[in-house]
């Protein structure tokens, strides 16, 4: 009797999951497969052409100067964005954890950029980092630097190919470092005061407390932050669109931007799909081990 009821209920639960499972199967896995197929096809004009050409699109892509620059840009961007956000986020969390008056006020200010669209961020920072020129006058941050007597720090920002993507990383750090702060702050609050006290009693100075007690305890949070920021970084697109476009000599171009442009502007669907597949592989390298690890660990608990 009870068994039959269980069986029936099992069916109901599966039915409840079914719409989502089907949707995700089709829209995630089915579409990824489809994109994979397009990436090995000859579809490089407006009308679909599914003739199989093997890995040709990938080989061409890796030989493409723009794509090589994109990969380099992405690496620079990711490195800067991750370290910048982690360091600033951690610093702010540690500072805020020191029984600061008006903590909520500061926290709100540090975190609010997170609620904005990358488009808004991009539009604003495009103007902030518009360097101006000696003849017409400085604008944006350069103007501000001039005003406070730090004129020597002026830069061409994203208009200077040597700076390029690094300028975009600054805007991205502005947007996401508060998020890291929130994560670390939650983590710090979870560490019992006794642990720190114990270390202090053992004669550790404040620096050592952080280095040997707190940081190791926060390792899972650091890992989580790296995963979250890392996948945002690899996918970065909106910010580039609104802030700089591909830039002089593609100095602010990234694979995601190239993908959209080559697919929907130049009708090179197969090339676009190949870029998408490469992006997916990069993200998977980061995400899959972490996903398996955290779900499995949770199952063990």
């Amino acid at each position, binding site marked *: 009797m009870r068994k039959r009821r269980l069986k029936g209920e099992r069916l109901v639960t599966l039915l409840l999951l079914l719409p989502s499972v089907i949707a995700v199967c089709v829209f995630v896995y089915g*579409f990824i497969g489809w*994109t994979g197929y397009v990436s090995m096809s000859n579809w490089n004009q407006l009308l679909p052409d599914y003739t199989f050409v093997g890995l040709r699109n990938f080989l061409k892509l890796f030989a493409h100067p723009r794509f090589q620059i994109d990969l380099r840009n992405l690496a620079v961007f990711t490195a800067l964005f991750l370290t910048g956000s982690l360091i600033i986020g951690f610093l702010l969390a540690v500072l805020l954890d020191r029984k600061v008056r008006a903590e909520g006020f500061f926290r709100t200010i540090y975190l609010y950029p997170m609620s*904005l669209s990358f488009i808004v961020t991009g539009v604003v920072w495009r103007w902030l980092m518009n360097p101006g020129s000696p003849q017409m006058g400085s604008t944006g941050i350069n103007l501000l630097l001039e005003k406070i007597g730090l004129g020597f720090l002026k830069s061409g920002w994203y208009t200077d190919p040597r700076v390029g993507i690094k300028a975009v990383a600054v805007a991205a750090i502005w947007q996401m470092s508060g998020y890291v702060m929130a994560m670390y702050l939650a983590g710090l609050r979870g560490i019992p005061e006794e642990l720190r006290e114990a270390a202090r009693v053992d004669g550790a100075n404040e620096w050592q407390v952080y280095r040997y007690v707190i940081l190791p305890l926060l390792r899972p949070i650091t890992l989580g932050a790296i995963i979250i920021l890392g996948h945002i970084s690899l*996918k970065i697109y909106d910010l580039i669109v609104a802030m700089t476009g591909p830039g002089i000599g593609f100095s602010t171009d990234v694979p995601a931007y190239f993908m959209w442009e080559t697919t929907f502007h130049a009708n090179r669907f197969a090339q676009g799909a190949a870029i998408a597949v490469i992006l997916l592989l990069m993200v998977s390298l980061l995400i899959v081990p972490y996903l398996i690890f955290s*779900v499995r660990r949770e199952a063990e608990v």
Partner: protein
Amino acid sequence: MTLGKMLPWQRVLLYLVLVGFATFYLMPVYVLVVTSLKSFAEVNLYRMWDLPHSFSLESFRKALLGGFGFTGLAHNFMNSFYVAIPATLASAFLGSLNGYVLSKWRFRGSNTMFTLLLFGMFIPYQSILIPLVQTLMKLGLYGSIPGLILAHTVYGIPITTLIFRNYYATVPKELVEAARIDGAGVLGVYTRIMLPVSMPGFVVVMIWQFTSIWNDFLFAVTIAQNPAVQPVTVALNNLAGSYIVEWNVQMAGSLMAALPTLLVYIFLGRYFMRGLLAGSLKG
């Protein structure tokens, strides 16, 4: 030197650093607000840090209602609501069902299924864009608000499922058991036990979804480029790219595009934080 026993100069330094960072974070908003309050006569790139001399709402009016050669953001604003509200509700509902089953009715392979589901949250959407466009075209939903709602709903399932699953995991087993003894089935437990305590979960999920859908650009620019159905992010980006639109109007437009999510953040910040942290898979 323990906590709370900082020397006065250290305290001062601490606050200086905090205020310094606050300035950095507020700087863009300062420019946004100051510029959008300036009158057209006063807008000058080379005086962008100066306070406005007089208070003017001209730029907001123009950004909303449009001017010569461009249409205002007012209807794009509405489009964003038309997309974000149904998609938020739909994905939250589906996520709650999934979260319920995956937390309280585990079966063999449910963890694997959950992992497979979660993967959908991290994929670069570029990797599904071409098939998505093709499929929406076949369905006659391309270039329409329902098409965009569909995309946001489906790709929202992983994160809503994750948040609900974690949330429902905190509902005591005993409550479920008790309801089962009273004869409640799968749906009975859901409606009688889970739904009534789900409110906070729904708030977190809905805030999260609303914010990400409102802020989305990639799906919108790919699926809904037609000016009649463009959400505000796409329209704002076009506005900023069009050279006849004055700088202050762009700033006013940005401020308005940011406002809904900013208000949500300011007034429901606590839940917003929870969503953020949930997004990190509980560390």
